[in-house]
């Protein structure tokens, strides 16, 4: 293989995993945007999504489409349910309490999943399949193409949703000042639930794509994924949709190249070092808008 095609292959590798990070980061970012909560349970919602795919397809033997819908709808419902049970009562509490609750929810989901599904991982059935594409000497896997395309489309839809619809406006208002938003005629509860539903549905899509690329589901799979998505969201500028996208791709590609040059041992170190560097140069992330406090 030529150097160039290796580089291109590595780049595609990075884009593929980056797409998944980006989708998850988006959900992270949206939830953060609206209630300023680092939703540590977000990664675990993905885990639930993956199990939902596994259950519908491997246990119930239903076709992939059903599995995909089950994951997306299931995750959205779970997200809203968690928000209602665990986060709503804490809306007026210090933010850190909310953070700890989110950590509690994350532990809870992991351990319950382990109790129900067992500790080992489940092998995912094939969800999508198709022919690989050859571009010159570069081998493009079907799954990679699907992953990248789905991520890009989700992103576009979401951008339109947030910028052009009333719900999107409501989300922005609620994220700034819940009281004032109510006075504008916005239903805060509905808006927050909606945000969780969308964010978690994205996690559901993420779960499906992840399962296509890495066909295993385990109770602890959400932890590392969640963390990386979190990093991606912050890198891109938390609260920003294109930011989450850029952050996700950046981390995916970065990881791919760090591993490619034989530094995979230091991958996490390098990713965090880059993150730190970016934050020091631009403290609100790549796309984050800096809001100076007026004195």
């Amino acid at each position, binding site marked *: 293989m030529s150097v160039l095609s*290796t580089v291109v292959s590595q780049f595609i590798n990075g884009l593929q995993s980056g797409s998944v990070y980006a989708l998850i980061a988006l959900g992270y970012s949206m939830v953060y945007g609206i209630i300023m909560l680092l939703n540590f349970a977000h990664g675990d919602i993905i885990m639930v999504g993956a199990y939902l795919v596994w259950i519908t397809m491997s246990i119930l033997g239903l076709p992939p489409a059903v599995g995909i819908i089950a994951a997306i709808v299931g995750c959205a419902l779970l997200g809203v349910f968690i928000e209602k049970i665990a986060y709503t009562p804490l809306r007026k509490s210090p933010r850190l309490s909310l953070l700890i609750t989110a950590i509690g929810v994350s532990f809870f989901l992991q351990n319950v999943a382990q109790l129900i599904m067992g500790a*080992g991982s489940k092998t995912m059935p094939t969800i999508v399949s198709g022919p690989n594409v050859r571009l010159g000497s570069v081998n493009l896997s079907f799954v990679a193409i699907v992953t990248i395309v789905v991520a890009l489309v989700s992103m576009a839809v979401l951008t339109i949703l947030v910028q052009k619809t009333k719900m999107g406006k409501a989300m922005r208002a609620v994220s700034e000042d819940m009281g004032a938003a109510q006075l504008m005629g916005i239903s805060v509860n509905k808006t927050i639930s909606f945000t969780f539903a969308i964010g978690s549905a994205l996690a559901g899509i993420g779960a499906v794509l992840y399962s296509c690329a*890495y066909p295993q589901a385990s109770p*602890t799979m959400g*932890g590392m994924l969640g963390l990386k998505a979190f990093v991606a969201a912050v890198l891109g500028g938390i609260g920003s949709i294109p930011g989450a996208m850029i952050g996700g791709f950046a981390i995916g590609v970065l990881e791919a190249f760090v591993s490619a040059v*034989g530094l995979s*041992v230091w991958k996490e170190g390098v990713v965090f070092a880059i993150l730190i560097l970016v934050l020091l140069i631009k403290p609100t992330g790549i796309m984050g808008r800096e809001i100076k406090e007026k004195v």
Partner: protein
Amino acid sequence: GGKDKDSSIKVGLLGCITGDYAQYGVAVFNGAKLYINKVNAEGGINGKKIELIEYDDKGDSTEAVNAFTRMVDNDGITALIGSVLSGASIAVVGEAYPIGMPVISASATAAAFTYNEETDTVYSNAFRVCFIDPFQGEKMAQFAAEKLDAKTAAVIYETGNDYAVGLKDAFVKECAEQGITVVADEGYSKGDKDFRSQLTNIAAKEPDVVFSPNYYEDDGMIVTQARQVGVTATFLGGDGWARVTEYASAADLEGSYYCSSYAASSTDAIKEFEAEYAEAYNGEAPSMFAALGYDAAVVLVDALKAAEAKKLKAGTDDYKAAVIDAMKNTSSVGVTSKYSFDEFNNPIKDAVIIKVENGNEVFAQMF
């Protein structure tokens, strides 16, 4: 139930049954419990039931030490099966050695579990029924050279995992002896699911064999992705490969070899064990960890019998010494092998080489 103290022999069972490595812990627990329950059902030892004190350590050294101390102080155990992970097991031995507590682990593969290199001390109380890490690495390098005529090799392993690192180090060292050139040395971190970058590099070097001494879930993923990025080499692995066929396709795995202490359905004893296990645990098929858990219990129970035969009182120092002594000179027969221990308390048994054929893990040869 400690009402009648003499009516039971208390044995600790320690390992990670929650957390990232819970699947190994649960398997070891299941295997060990299967045998102990069997012994109890048959009337126990000397009319005494074996009472298992089971604690979870989450794979965490601190928790393991605390749980072990609790077993000793509050529960009054006489011997310990555990822990499951090497790190936790080493920490526990540090506590168990000074008090002469017999310990047998089903899965602590790190050499340091029974032998402290720096102080040159053998922990005389600690035994294991699994291979040590270097043994498997050496075996596979020899196998690659002698049976596969490999000239070049690549390795891919989890860097933060002492098991994987131990196997890989031994493999690389032995390769040098055997005249195999290691052309690529790629690592990854715990929790990684994407190995394409490393595998793309390996593919570019076109090695004869790839040694992937990790746990089966990762190995399955690695082999799958390797084929996607164009690695055609024969894959080799350690005993962590057991059940790998559930995690990668038959085509991708075809012709891979790994070294193990356990080959599913390969002997009558194993078949019987599989049947018992399936009956006890909802039809589940046992993994190597389950088999080793079972074997650890077998070796320990035999040693307990020896101590009982000496009419010693469970829990006393003499009793423990007798158990240790009996284990040292054991000739127990477990499901995977007949056991005896070398000077470092490591089991002397041949490795089983398993080959993946048509999606089945079949016994290839003893090596």
